[in-house]
């Protein structure tokens, strides 16, 4: 393909003219165009045109064409993951049960009594006027860190009734319902989102055709 910059302005095709307009728009916007989050779009973000005939249009393909030919430079902006099955970016990540992958979890604080090493959910230590009473040794517990501690949370699953110290991270695709947990997350498709900056070749092209 013949580089844009060596063609005369009048000899450009309509697509070529559009690309120059995109370049010009980027330069007029400070030399940089950033993505805009747009959840309704299948990709999750758009590069919206800001001037003239391009106003409101998604310019992602044009920008990528120009970046591929080094009229624009790419700079990392964000990473987004897509569903491996339907490519949707609409993914819901939450804590799930390691056994049955249900998100129907509850957690409770475990209390450790130093004197007798009794450990149980905090509600099993009856509350009294001056503190809590240990059900094992029947001593009064008063000072956190002095005579007792809260070493951890205990999670339990309301579906399969399993208990565990740490829930797993699970992801469900809001588009197709695919579930990902643990190592399955590796099958999600990551994509880097970039912002585009005018490159020296882009500036030359604009200057050569009298846009700059």
């Amino acid at each position, binding site marked *: 393909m013949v580089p844009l910059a060596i063609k005369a302005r009048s000899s450009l095709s309509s697509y070529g003219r559009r690309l120059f307009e995109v370049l010009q728009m980027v330069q007029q916007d400070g030399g940089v165009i950033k993505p805009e989050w747009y959840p309704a779009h299948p990709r999750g973000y758009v590069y919206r045109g800001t001037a003239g005939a391009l106003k409101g249009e998604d310019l992602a393909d044009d920008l990528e064409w120009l970046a591929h030919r080094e009229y624009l430079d790419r700079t990392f902006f964000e990473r987004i993951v897509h569903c491996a099955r339907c490519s949707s970016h609409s993914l819901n990540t939450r804590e799930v049960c*390691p056994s049955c992958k249900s998100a129907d979890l509850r957690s409770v604080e*475990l209390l450790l009594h*130093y004197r007798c*090493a009794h450990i149980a959910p905090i509600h099993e230590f009856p509350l009294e006027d001056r503190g809590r009473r240990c059900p094992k040794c029947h001593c009064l517990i008063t000072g956190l860190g002095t005579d007792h501690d809260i*070493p951890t949370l205990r999670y339990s699953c309301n579906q399969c009734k399993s208990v*565990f110290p*740490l829930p797993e991270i699970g992801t469900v695709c809001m588009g197709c319902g695919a579930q990902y947990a*643990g190592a399955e997350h590796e099958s999600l498709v990551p994509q880097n989102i970039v912002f585009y900056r005018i490159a020296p070749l882009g500036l030359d092209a604009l200057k050569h055709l009298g846009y700059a």
Partner: protein
Amino acid sequence: MPEFWHYFIARLTPATLGGSLGSALTHMYGPAFFFILAITTINQLPPLIMWFVFMARPRAFDPPANPGFRPLVSVIVPGRNLGKNIATTIDSVLQAGYENIEIIYADDNSTDDSASWARTFESTGKVKVFASEKHHGKPVTINIALAFAQGELIFVLDGDSDIEPGTIDALVAYFQDERVGAAVTNLLIKGHSLLTYLISMEFSLTGTLGRIWRAPFDILRMLPGPSTMFRATALRSIGCFDPGLGDDTDITLRLRKAGWHLRYVSTHCVRTDCPSNLRGLLKQRNRWARGMMKVRFNKHFDFGHPRYGGNSTLLWCEFVVQTIMSLRGLQTILFFVFATIFVRSDIVIPIYGLNVLFILIKALIANDLTGYPRFRHFWLVILYPAYLLPIRLAVECGIVRELLRIKPYHPYVPKRIWEQTPYH
């Protein structure tokens, strides 16, 4: 030799140190002679009888038949700074051949990558990892893991121990009897040095042989920390572990007091780590002796009360006799080390030889019953009495220290917990 030493040694005769072994030999048929005869009988006779039983009925010590009892077993592995070793332990459990298990690795605030190694097994779906943000000590760490355990049976396995295939099946078989609260396996030592072979021989001659004859009478003295299976209801009914030294002796006595029966599997073994040098070994034995005294003397001195059963009373009597014997033993050791060994080699050498003979008999019995110690290690019986000497001294020092309550703190449990616990 300076005149002082002549004077000193001249008075260090067996007669002047009456009550010691030398005195017993000098005054043959005196009280000390019968005392030593009784101790020798206690040590030698029961294993010998069990050996005869074994020869008459070779399957007498096998675990009971288990046609289909396969409850969920929660394997609790407490550990601290075990590094890659934890992977070996967890792998040995996964390869043990028992399918219905969950493994809970409870990390006691390790400063290395132990928890990361354990987490590599989470993808099996059978391993849960709890990493504590504070150092709590072993008993508390086990209790935390118990809060996540869902098994009907709880198998507490040290993080530096590996189990043989079939061990869990053999242990589970005993729990078909609803009265059984805990069961233990053989313990062996990992490693290939002279010291580890001697420790392994000691475990076989004292631990294994002792348990073989004690188990049928339900008078097991201790459920060893590295490998004991508990019935979850039994453990929870007594409030799980208490903090402090001697947690294994403590849990044994509390289960016994609660009326649970204790069993022993002689057909399978767990291999555990041990200190790699003599200094570490002596410190470990000193700690064991202190823990044992703290628990039996300070906390559970009433365990021999008839309301806990005749076997508990028998154990209590044995404990009292053994404590007295230990103190007498200290006197004997001091006598031999400081006097006899220099001036009465005519006594020392035959007694040493007699000791070696007794040990050889026990080694033969142990080998026939369990396969350990191996025949290729039998030559170590010559060194065995000499190996026991410093260990006995470390144990005696621990006992005396506890009896006199000298510096009771031990870092086995963090100070913030220690200060709150009774029975120092």
